[in-house]
C-alpha cells in the first residue's frame, strides 16, 4: 500500500473511532437525562409530603434547641470556619462552587436528637471542635478550604479564609475538617483494638435494622454473661441520632450513608445510659465508651471524665414532634432517590472517562495532521 493510501486509511480509522466515542457520549448523556428526570419526579412527589406534615412547636422546655437554633449558635461564632461556612450557605448568591459542591455540612447540623439532655451530653462528649467540624465528601473539598503559599504559610485570599476576609471575618486558630473518603470499608470480624495504618476512623461493617426509614445500625445490645441487658441502657448513641431526609439520602462515593460512615466514625459503639450509677454498674459491658443522660461520661479509650458538666456552645438540634400523613412506600421512595442520585454520579464519571478518551483521540489526530 502506498504511503498516501496508508495515511488515508489511518485517517479514516481515527474518524471512525471519534464517531464511536461521540456516539457513546450521546448514549451516556441520554441515560443521564433520563435519570435526572426520574430523580426530579420523585423529589417533587416526596416534597409534597414534606409540606403536608405538621410540626408541633416544642414549648415545654425553655432550653429546647431546634435545628434553626443550632445554625444560629454556629453563626454566633463569627470568627470560626464553621461560622463562615454557614454564612456562605445561607447567602447562596456568593456561592463558591468548589467549596460548596463538595462540602456536606457542619457536624452539628447534620443530625438531631430526641431530648435536650441527650443533646447536651453528646455535644459535650464530641467536643466543640468536632461539633464545628466541616464535613467534605472528598479530598478535593478539603483542599478547597485552605490553600498555602509556596513558603508553607496559609494563603488568606483563598479558600475559606478568602471568603472570611471578604465578609470581614477571620478564622481564629485551628478548625477540623472531616473527609468522608477516609472511611474505607475494611472487613473485620471484630473491632480491632490495635491502630490501623491509614484508617482515621473505623467504618461500620455490619447490618442495618430492617425496614427502618432511618437506616439505623444493627449493633447487638450489650449483655451480661447471664444474657441480661444492663439496667438503664437506652441505645447506642449512633442510633439515637435523627437524620433529616436530605441527609438520609446522602451517600458517599462508595454508596454508604452518613450514619455508618461519619457518625459511626465519631461515636462508634458509644452506649447511652439513663443514669451515672447504671452506667458504672454496666462497666464490664462497655467497650467503646458510654455516656449517661445525667452527665456521666466515659471516653472511647476508657478514660473517665469526672467533674461538673460543661455545656458546649453548639449543640445538636432537637427533633420536633411531627404528625403527617405519608404514603406507605415513602421510605422506599427515599431509598430509590438515594440510589438514583448515586447512579447519576457514577454515570457522570463514565461520561468523564469517555470525554477524556475522545479528547485524547482528537489531540492525537491533530498531532498526526500537523
Amino acid at each position, binding site marked *: 500500500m502506498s504511503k498516501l493510501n496508508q495515511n488515508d486509511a489511518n485517517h479514516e480509522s481515527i474518524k471512525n*473511532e471519534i464517531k464511536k466515542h461521540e456516539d457513546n457520549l450521546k448514549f451516556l448523556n441520554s441515560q443521564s437525562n433520563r435519570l435526572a428526570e426520574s430523580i426530579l419526579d420523585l423529589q417533587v412527589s416526596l416534597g409534597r409530603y414534606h409540606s403536608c406534615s405538621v410540626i408541633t412547636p416544642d414549648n415545654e422546655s425553655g432550653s429546647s434547641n431546634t435545628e434553626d437554633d443550632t445554625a444560629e449558635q454556629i453563626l454566633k461564632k463569627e470568627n470560626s470556619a464553621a461560622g463562615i461556612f454557614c454564612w456562605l450557605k445561607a447567602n447562596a448568591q456568593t456561592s463558591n462552587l468548589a467549596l460548596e459542591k463538595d462540602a456536606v455540612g457542619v457536624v452539628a447540623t447534620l443530625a438531631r436528637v430526641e431530648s435536650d439532655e441527650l443533646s447536651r451530653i453528646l455535644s459535650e462528649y464530641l467536643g466543640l471542635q468536632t461539633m464545628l467540624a466541616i464535613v467534605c465528601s472528598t479530598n478535593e473539598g478539603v483542599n478547597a478550604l485552605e490553600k498555602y503559599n509556596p513558603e508553607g504559610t496559609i494563603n488568606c485570599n483563598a479558600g475559606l479564609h478568602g471568603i472570611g476576609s471578604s465578609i470581614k471575618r477571620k478564622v481564629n486558630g485551628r478548625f477540623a475538617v472531616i473527609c468522608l473518603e477516609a472511611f474505607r470499608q475494611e472487613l473485620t470480624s471484630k473491632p480491632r483494638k490495635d491502630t490501623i495504618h491509614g484508617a482515621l476512623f473505623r467504618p461500620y461493617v455490619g447490618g442495618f435494622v430492617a425496614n427502618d426509614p432511618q437506616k439505623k445500625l444493627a449493633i447487638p445490645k450489650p449483655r451480661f454473661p447471664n444474657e441480661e441487658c444492663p439496667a438503664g441502657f437506652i441505645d447506642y448513641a449512633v442510633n439515637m441520632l435523627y437524620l433529616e431526609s436530605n441527609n438520609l439520602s446522602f451517600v458517599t462515593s462508595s454508596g454508604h450513608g452518613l450514619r455508618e460512615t461519619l457518625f459511626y466514625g465519631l461515636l462508634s459503639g458509644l452506649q447511652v445510659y439513663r443514669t451515672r450509677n447504671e452506667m458504672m454498674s454496666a462497666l464490664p459491658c462497655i467497650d467503646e465508651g458510654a455516656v449517661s443522660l445525667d452527665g456521666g461520661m466515659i471516653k472511647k479509650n476508657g478514660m473517665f471524665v469526672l467533674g461538673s458538666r460543661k455545656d458546649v456552645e453548639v449543640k445538636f438540634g432537637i427533633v420536633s414532634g411531627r404528625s403527617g400523613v405519608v404514603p406507605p412506600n*415513602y421510605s422506599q421512595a427515599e431509598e430509590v432517590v438515594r440510589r438514583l442520585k448515586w447512579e447519576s454520579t457514577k454515570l457522570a464519571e463514565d461520561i468523564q472517562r469517555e470525554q477524556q*478518551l475522545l479528547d485524547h483521540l482528537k489531540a492525537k489526530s491533530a498531532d498526526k495532521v500537523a
Partner: protein
Amino acid sequence: MKRSSPWDEPVQNPDSSSNDIPLPITSIDLTSQDILIRRAEIYQEYMKQIPIPSQRGSVIPFNSWMGLGKSIKQLYGQPLHYLTNVILKQWDQLRLNSKDEYKPLDNLIHPTKAEATIWLMEEVHRQTSSHFQIAELWKLDPMYNCSVDAIFPTLEKHCETS
C-alpha cells in the same frame, strides 16, 4: 435484627394505598444487559489506555489489601481496575478469622512483593479482560460501582488505542 425505634413511626393513613408514590423503573433499565455491555466497553477501553507506571520505587507499609490499593491509587494517581479492586476485597475477606488475622499484613507479605503483585494483576486486567465478561459480572453485582474508582489520570499522548 429488628429493634424498636426510640421515636414514633410516621402516622400511616390506612386509606393511602392509592396514594403510593409512583416509583420509576429507570433503575431497572440501567442494569439491562445492553446498557451494561456498552458501559463495560467504555470502561474497559478507558482502563486499557492507562499505562502501568514503570518507575516504582515505593515501599508501602500496609495492614490490608484494600488499604494498600488505596495508597497505590494516591501515590500514582491512577485508578485500579474493577477486577483488581474486587480481588483485593476478597483477599481481605479471606483473612477473617484466620490465625494471624491481627498480625500486620506487611509482616506476612513483603510490601514490595505485594505492590508488584497488584501491578501485575492490574496489567492483566487492563490489557486482557473482555468487556462482555465484565458486563456479566456487573449484572450479578448491582453495586459494582463501589469498586470502580473515580480517578481520572491524564492519558499519555503516546498511548495507542487497541
